[in-house]
């Protein structure tokens, strides 16, 4: 149902959309279970025998499962970031003159409530790409601090999949202890704070996509679902 004078542009491949929604559901589960692990906010009924409940254990199980899914999608995203055949986001993040200009133009567009729009809105713009990059940095931080917290439970140096796993986790994440402040508790606090930053990130992300859809009138919200949006045909085109 294309409108006259508009053409559709492809913005997200099926793989990208799959990752987007996998992340969406993983995040909801991670936050719900993570808040419980940080501070068990609902109570299991005292009358039940302990074997039937396993409430904390299920929460932790869920948390670790979505964490692993997150880890896998993060690795794919990191790969696509540099080697995608579709669009390589790193090109939009490096601070070239053109990227910086575009970044501020998009920001001004938002601040002037769409009274100024001097950029090509058909492609992923620098502003949004920077914003997504921040998200993936936050996620990587969650991954590293989370695995550090996780390896505390493998103190014997063994795991069900062998000794290499805790060894690798120590090598890959022990540095987060001094970086966050020197104690295991600092890693936990940092992991918890980062969750809040991610929630705030998500809130603005959703708002911004809806706002663009309403004011730009290019169907941006459809990108995450159908993979396409619409832009006006350039007059000279």
């Amino acid at each position, binding site marked *: 149902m294309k*409108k*006259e*004078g*508009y053409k559709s542009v492809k913005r997200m491949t099926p793989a990208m959309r799959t990752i987007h929604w996998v992340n969406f559901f993983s995040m909801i589960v991670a936050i719900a279970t993570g*808040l419980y692990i*940080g*501070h*068990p906010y609902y*109570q*299991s009924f*005292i009358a039940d025998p*302990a*074997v039937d*409940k*396993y*409430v*904390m*254990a299920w*929460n932790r199980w869920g948390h670790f499962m979505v964490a692993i899914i997150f880890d896998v999608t993060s690795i794919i995203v990191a790969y696509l970031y540099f080697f995608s055949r579709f669009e390589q986001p790193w090109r939009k993040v490096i601070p070239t003159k053109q990227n910086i200009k575009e970044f501020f133009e998009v920001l001004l567009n*938002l601040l002037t*409530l*769409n*009274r100024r*729009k001097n950029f090509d809105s058909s492609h992923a713009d620098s502003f949004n790409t920077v914003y997504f990059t921040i998200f993936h940095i936050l996620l990587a931080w969650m991954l590293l601090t989370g695995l550090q917290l996780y390896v*505390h*439970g493998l*103190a*014997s*140096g063994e795991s069900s999949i062998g*000794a290499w796993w*805790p*060894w690798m986790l*120590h090598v890959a994440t*022990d540095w987060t202890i001094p970086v966050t*402040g*020197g*104690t*295991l*508790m*600092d890693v*936990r*606090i940092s992991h*918890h*704070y980062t*969750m*809040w*930053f991610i*929630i*705030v990130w998500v*809130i*603005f992300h959703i*708002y911004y996509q809806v*706002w663009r859809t*309403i*004011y*730009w*009138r*290019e169907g941006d919200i459809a990108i995450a679902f159908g993979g396409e949006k619409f832009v*006006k045909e350039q007059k000279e085109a």
Partner: protein
Amino acid sequence: MGIDKHDSVKSLFTAQSAKVNTNRGDAYYEKLYAQCRARLDELKALAPLNNRMDFKESIEEEGLDRRDFMKWASATTAMLMLPASFTPLVAEAAVLMNRVPVIWIELQDCAGNTEALIRSDGPKIDEIILDIISLEFNETLMAAAGHQAEKQLEDAVEHFKGKYLLFVEGSVPMGMDGYYGTIGANGETFIDHLTRLAKDAAAVVAVGSCATFGGIPAAAPNPTDAKGVMDVVKGKPIINIPACPANPSNMVGVILHYVLTGGIPELDSLLRPKFAFGYRIHDNCERRAHFDAGEFVEEWGDEGAKNNFCLYKVGCKGPMTFNNCSIVRYNEGVNWPVGVGRGCIGCSEPDFWDKYAYERPMANANIKAPTGGVEKSVDEFGLGLLTAAGVGIAIHAAASAVAGKKSEEN
């Protein structure tokens, strides 16, 4: 003593790995056994140092028989992660402990570790052993005072140069050139006192959280700029035995290990012996099943408390604390903090007073928010952040609705 302790101490000291290895294979243990045997024979040839008690007599005086002693020896062998065949060696080493001189000094502290090792309901073998180790100098316990005490210290250092274990209790105040803490008629600062005595020691053992990481004197705002021993003493093997107070079993373990092997035990990255600090409280806690079940004490004295539920929601920090309280317990295995119904406060971890010791889960702890200064709980800060973002979005949305310009339609 012929064995080159310095080298064996050094090589053990540099062992680096996070793994607790309880089975190193027969070849390793056979070699170690021979080494320990030789070491004990050597020590046996030496006369006991000028010490107050004979081990066998002390045991009999306390009404313990040889069976109790052997039970203790096998438990201690297991604690040190040695195979059962080492039990007779450990028993022998215990009797020979009066051959190794120990100098015990106190800096900025409450003498709680000294108290821990001398006070317990019925003195049992750990405590007896700490009575018979050749404690050449200990301010709290000895009779001498003033110049006499100082003289005794000088004599001990002179006599046992390079051979004594220096036990340090208490933190080192670094502020004001160290003049927050001085000792003796000459007003020697704690910094100088410690460095001087450490110079001639075979190894330095920091006992308790203050001596290891600064402990309570180093808690915010740390007025005396208190530091742990490992931040002050350089170029000496250091063993940290944190906890508030350090468990006498772990002190005995370290001395025994030294008597037995002439070296110091394998250490973790915070210089804590792995035999004691290699495991997490939470993984050996008797309330762990309630944690997994989600059964928590909600407030002190409630139904959950009566049922010995998990103490996580009243602030137990067992999940982030490495120590062996949940295994060896205190006072000869009588009980331990979580056993009596209050959570672990992470006393064996750095900065425990500021970062662990509150009776709430971490998410609700009042700690410094990243905005600086203001004490806030992590979740309060997060909700504040969320509210700020929400308000910003609401303003933008309202402004857009009123004054926003929709792009032209064709």
